[in-house]
């Protein structure tokens, strides 16, 4: 086998050194009656055969590279500059472990530090950690963090229009804790009326699951007055144009960072982004890289503040997270540096203009209407016939029109969540309009 270099001669010599006759003797601690089971998983195959099998399996998926794609809802089809995967896949990044030995891990460490810096600036916060599993778990851990600040505060305010799967994840994470999770349906400012002295935190979706962006002015102040934390779950691409949540007073900012240079990959690996304001740094979960100096005064980077973490604090740790989404974070770092200020702004502007063009065109299709409000790259389209049927009809023609909201809300049968990014051309949008028109007939 190409993955085991030990030759028979090597093996003999090694066994002799160890002082046993056969390899089996090394396994005598394992109960004999269950040793060496037949697994029934088949013979090993060649690389060629396995890759062919995978190619043909992969071909069964309907994918964004070969369709007009208007489906987002938490996983986004954005442009990835070619250099991103080419650099991130370098063996020195790909096959390193967590940078426990800083002298031989400055590559990874500096990349994390740069990511932390850029993400903190994007969010308007003071520190961002080295990643969570995804946007949902980042938010769940943020809420958990808020809850732990003061266990008397056992109410959690969630927006009704938070991504349904994020809500489910929060519920799972809290299944062992005596909290009350309340969902508010108002705009964030109005929802502040729900704040009580038991409120641990108020979560704001910015934009909300349906793509709409609320004006957050004044919200954080009210939350703080109530003694709670203000947590914003956001979209990093939108922040290329829109006010940073930190700037708006958020204490904790989380996001799904997949859109930053990572493919959709059927939903994973994604990037949980997590940032906090200064006072919360020592309470935040996740790995952090800090700048320091070596004996010669040279700048260097290390994992720091690990006294919060599980490998030091064990049951008293702020979180159990160990492996995170390092490589995805690296792709995001490369993406952010490639785009930079001008590029991210440009992408956000393209999303804005194209989404609004689409909303305009689609709202003119007889029978359809666009939900009003300020939206960024996604919006809700009311459909004259069931959205699920439309989606099915169009997908077969390789136009993926968006998410039928009935997928998450049984009764919202005539609504489609449409996502438009820089990847969509005017021609595709016009084609979508035409196809929707036909589908309504």
């Amino acid at each position, binding site marked *: 086998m190409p993955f085991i270099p030990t030759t028979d001669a090597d093996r003999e010599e090694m066994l002799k050194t160890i002082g046993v006759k056969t390899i089996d003797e090394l396994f005598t601690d394992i109960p004999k009656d269950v040793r060496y089971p037949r697994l029934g998983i088949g013979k090993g195959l060649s690389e060629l055969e396995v890759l062919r099998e995978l190619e043909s399996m992969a071909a069964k998926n309907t994918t964004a590279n070969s369709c007009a794609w208007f489906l987002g809802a938490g996983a986004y089809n954005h442009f990835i500059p070619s250099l991103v995967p080419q650099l991130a896949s370098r063996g020195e990044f790909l096959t390193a472990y967590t940078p426990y030995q800083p002298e031989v891990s400055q590559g990874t460490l500096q990349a994390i530090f740069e990511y932390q810096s*850029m993400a903190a600036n994007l969010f308007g916060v003071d520190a961002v950690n080295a990643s969570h599993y995804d946007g949902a778990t980042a938010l769940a851990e943020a809420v958990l963090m808020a809850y732990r600040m003061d266990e008397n505060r056992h109410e959690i305010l969630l927006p009704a229009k938070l991504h349904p799967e994020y809500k489910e994840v929060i519920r799972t994470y809290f299944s062992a804790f005596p909290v009350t999770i309340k969902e508010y349906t108002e705009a964030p400012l109005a929802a502040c009326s729900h704040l009580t002295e038991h409120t641990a935190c108020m979560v704001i979706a910015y934009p909300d699951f349906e793509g709409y962006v609320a004006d957050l002015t004044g919200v954080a102040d009210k939350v703080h007055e109530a003694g709670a934390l203000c947590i914003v779950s956001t979209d990093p691409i939108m922040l290329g144009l829109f006010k940073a949540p930190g700037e708006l007073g958020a204490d904790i900012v989380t996001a799904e960072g997949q859109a930053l240079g990572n493919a959709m990959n059927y939903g994973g690996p994604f990037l949980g982004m997590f940032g906090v304001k200064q006072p919360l740094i020592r309470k935040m979960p996740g790995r952090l890289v800090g700048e320091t100096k070596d004996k010669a005064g040279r700048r260097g980077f290390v994992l720091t503040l690990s006294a919060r973490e599980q490998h030091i604090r064990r049951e008293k*740790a702020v979180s159990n997270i160990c492996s995170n989404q390092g490589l995805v974070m690296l792709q995001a770092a490369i993406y952010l540096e490639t785009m930079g200020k001008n590029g991210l702004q440009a992408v956000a502007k393209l999303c804005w203009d194209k989404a609004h063009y689409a909303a305009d065109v689609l709202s003119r299709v007889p029978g359809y209407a666009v939900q009003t409000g300020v939206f960024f790259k996604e919006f809700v389209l009311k459909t004259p016939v069931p959205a699920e049927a439309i989606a099915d009809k169009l997908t077969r023609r390789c136009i993926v029109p968006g998410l039928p909201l009935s997928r998450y809300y049984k009764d919202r049968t005539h609504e489609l969540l449409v996502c438009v990014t820089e990847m969509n051309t005017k021609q595709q949008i016009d084609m979508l309009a035409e196809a929707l028109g036909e589908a309504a007939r």
Partner: protein
Amino acid sequence: MNKEPELLAYELSRPGRIGTVLPQSDVPETPLPASLLRNELPLPEMDELTVVRHFTRLSQKNFSIDTQYYPLGSCTMKYNPKANEAAAAMHGWKHAHPLIGDVYSQGSLELMYNLQEMLAKIGGFTGVSLQPAAGAHGELAGVLMIRAYHTARGDTKRTKMLIPDSAHGTNPATSTMAGMTVETIPSDADGDVDIEALKKACDETVAGIMITNPNTLGLFEKRIREIVEIVHRAGGLVYGDGANLNAITGILRPADVGIDVMHFNLHKTFSTPHGGGGPGVGMVGAGVTLAPYLPGPIVVKKDNHYALEMPSKSIGRLKAFYGNFAVLVRAYTYVRMVGEEGLRRIAENAVLNANYVKAKLEQVYPVPYKRSCMHEFVARGDFVEGIHTLDIAKRLIDYDIHPPTIYFPLIVPEAIMIEPTETESKETLDRFIEVMLTIAQEAKTSPDLLHDAPHDTPVSRLDEVAAARNPVLCYRG
């Protein structure tokens, strides 16, 4: 070569630069809502070459499996086949969207289903969920499942998890996150769980035990069946931490000794790259008792198609969507290539290599437990006055070898935890042994060589105390 310090992105930035060209807009402009816009966007501005050179040079400042021997205990730094990468790069995976619907995702679902099945067989489990994103995430799943099981039976007093003192920090931390209290079980003189202590801890509040086997000392818990029985008899369930599965694939199915629920780190045993921190997959498998509680959705096969489904009593979702899918593709590729026989050979050779290195080093580096080890072993680095394990670790760097895991597990003072893995050649092991023995000599004859190590890295030992005292976590200009 490449010894110059690498400036930070912000230091390389100049106003007006950009690293890629974006398309011109082909639609009319829509006015922006001025009051909602940010004033500044402090991101660096770099040209494309600068970005490429920056990250290429940064990468060269890393040790990695692809460049150095990396015997990092517990982390299973084995070779990550390049075919895994080719597989994960296929368009049909990369551009697949999680919400397009099962009918249009049959390829992804088939792969997940097949992988679930294979992993279930490898572990001997009834059901498998691929959702957890890492080992610790799988632990959370498992402990929540145990909790849910007790709760479902109305047995709400069970809030205590038993955790051996050799356990990885994620085990106790997970228990806390799952609302449990932790009771630590000491190890006995053999490095196994102290059975008497275990028995004592097994009262009616016991929810279960989290057990790592082979444990973090690299030893197989010989009395694993007894442990399982004791806990089961007390009404608790057994969580298996499968981070060390590399030692026993094809040798033992954990379920066969009574493990109720377990995670496997696909980013260890199943050769998916660690990526400088992640992503991983902490797939969980469960026996009949707990399978209905698995996090979901998982993939089921119905006639000729595949579908996502929530297990009947599922603890719910642990993340959005279905897991770190691209990592699953890699693990699947690997299992298909090695096959049944390969899995066993992996374990056999991992164990052979560890015992070989141990045999060669234990005269000099004291190994506290005198038994044959599994895929790794723990030695001590404090056999010369004034020399610490840290010094030995850093000195290894001078010889172009990545240090083993150090100061873990916590129960062995000055621990050095060496995991050779099966993918390294005897020549590489022999060189490592030789270097370790040389360093042991140097520890006596020229201790400063160790204290000042490493000598030829981009930076020498860094001031970690200052870093934590006054944290700089963000570029400040």
